């Protein structure tokens, strides 16, 4: 039997983990979880094994920063068999004010949210191009659509990912490789627990993940999840500067 082989980078992030749950519920896939914290990944992996005893779940600890390690890790994964789907989902929401005061934090936020996902995508794209098959899904953010004072460092990193994906899509347009960028709006996860307001301003992580898993099986190149963010961000992108700069968002 030909099992789907799925790699998730940043597998302990809430959105990635919920995607994994959906994938194992769908079919007995082979999942390769990649993350920094092995103990936490083990919790995620044993949960997935209970949910689907037929699925194979493997954990790999990884360095998210060093380009040599990233290349070696991806090479090792691909050596064991072709990857059908690679979901690049890691990131962390920095405190904007702290980033303004401390350039180390600013640098780390740009690296982990911008440079690191791009290096992973680049490593996978080479293998997928040779195989002429595979789906590369990268989680960006609506924050990357326009810089705003409340989180532009994170936004800049995610904006870099957006430009990168555009280029990669251009490069692989004539191949069998599919590249898609997913831009979640604010989602109710531990990363955003301190932002949670009453009244449903944050999307449910289960719903967001369902949309992502569905998007990955479809053909478009950019997905906003939930879909309403496509409209909201179109308006925000087009607001003239003299209006935008008076807003408090």
């Amino acid at each position, binding site marked *: 039997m030909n099992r789907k082989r799925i790699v998730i980078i940043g597998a*302990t992030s*809430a959105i990635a983990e919920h995607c994994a749950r959906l994938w194992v519920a769908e079919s007995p896939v082979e999942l390769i979880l990649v993350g920094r*914290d092995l*103990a*936490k990944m083990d*919790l*995620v992996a*044993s*949960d997935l094994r*209970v*949910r689907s005893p037929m699925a194979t779940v493997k954990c790999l600890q990884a360095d998210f920063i060093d380009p040599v390690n990233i290349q070696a890790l991806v090479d090792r994964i691909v050596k064991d068999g072709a990857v059908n789907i690679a979901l690049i989902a890691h990131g962390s929401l920095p405190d904007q004010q702290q980033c303004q005061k401390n350039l180390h934090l600013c640098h780390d936020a740009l690296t982990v949210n911008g440079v690191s996902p791009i290096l992973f995508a680049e490593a996978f794209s080479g293998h997928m191009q040779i195989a002429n098959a595979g789906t590369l899904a990268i989680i960006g953010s609506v924050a990357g659509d326009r810089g705003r004072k409340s989180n532009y460092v994170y936004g800049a990193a995610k904006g870099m990912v957006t430009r990168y994906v555009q280029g990669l899509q251009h490069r692989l347009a004539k191949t069998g490789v599919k590249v898609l960028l997913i831009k979640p709006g604010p989602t109710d*996860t*531990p990363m955003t*627990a*301190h932002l*949670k*307001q*009453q009244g449903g301003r944050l999307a449910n992580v289960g719903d967001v993940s369902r949309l992502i898993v569905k998007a990955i099986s479809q053909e478009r190149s950019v997905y906003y999840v939930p879909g309403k963010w496509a409209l909201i961000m179109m308006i925000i992108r087009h607001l003239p500067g003299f209006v935008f700069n008076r807003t408090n968002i």
Partner: protein
Amino acid sequence: MVAVSSWGKLGSWEHQIVAPNDRNQVFQQLQSRQLGLAYGMGRSYGDACLNPNGMLWRTTGLDHFISFDDNSGRLVCEAGVLLRDIQHLTIPRGWILPVTPGTLLITVGGAIANDVHGKNHHILGSFGDHVQHITLLRTSGEVIECGPQLREEWFSATVGGVGLTGFILTAEIQLRRVSGSWLDTETIPYANLDEFFQLADSSETTWEHTVSWIDCIYSRGRGIFMRANPADTEQRLEPTGRKLTMSFVPPVSLVNNLTLRPFNAAYYNLKRRQAGKSIVHYEPFFYPLDNLLEWNRMYGPKGFYQYQSVVPRAGGQGAIQAMLREIARSGEGSFLAVLKTFGNRESLGMLSFPRPGVTLALDFPNKGARTEKLFKCLDDIVREAGGCIYLAKDARMPRSLFEAGYPKFAEFLLYRDSGISSAMSRRLMGN
């Protein structure tokens, strides 16, 4: 700070929120100078799940299964797992949660902390009766492993302990064999309380699930009795699971003097015409409101109370009759009204609610002093009858009624965690 309300939406209060999602790291996150409280789905109606101006530890990120044995039906999971996720995982594999309340949208931790009950109390007791093991993390850092035969005093303090004995990290639950998702049901109208008690008593040995809807407008106590047993039936088409959301808070309660009487009359007459036997899927039978998300908004911006009491069977019928008379006279109430007998068994939790007797649960739109005046009359009847009020539903009972209704409360206080406090504990236990 984040504004949080409980299911009754009587108000919203500022809280600091911490959301652990790694059970190895929870202890570090409990460390703060503020007193905290575990918060799952916020389905407690009153103030049991609130800690205004303090800390809430949201448990819904701790939603990992740890192990499940298909042969023995033993499930081990983190406390933030929803009952819904357990049912969806295990029913296709032939196992079901033995006891569930009227919603599956609650966490395992919440089900233990409130020792919830279901329609089969007379056969299977309450949720805590099926918990085999709890790992409890105290804010001091001490980890207490307890169960029915292991440090039993900690177990019986924690089951029904409304979250005050520590942070429940994981639980082991014994599931029950099930052959499918279908139930043989029977619906029988009753015209008064005599008929209700006859039905309830005669169903006790032969029917696994019993419950009744009661029309709170009629003081004689007319209603619809429903009973069910697991069906030995072939696979049928599963329900679609289509969900509707109450997407706004109406400016006034949709349950009011204009709507209540016609709605209750229509419901009673419809059900009377539909009386008889049928085969029903377990979800609409047990959890009729789970497909109407955020239904608690229908009571408008002031929210609502649920008043759920239990009174012993000796004198119980008189007490229920007296409560119904008060409620009918006040013209308050809602169509969400349930009357049910509990089985003749004590619960294991020191503060567990289920006990031998008959329980009446009614929603009341919050009308301030008018509602409280009615509750005081009901309190007197409950106190007189030797009954008590369910902590998971309560937002206002006086301390004296709590102490009278929960005679083991003094013993319970010995097991409290000094780093934990809730609006309810401050109201009923002084801190």
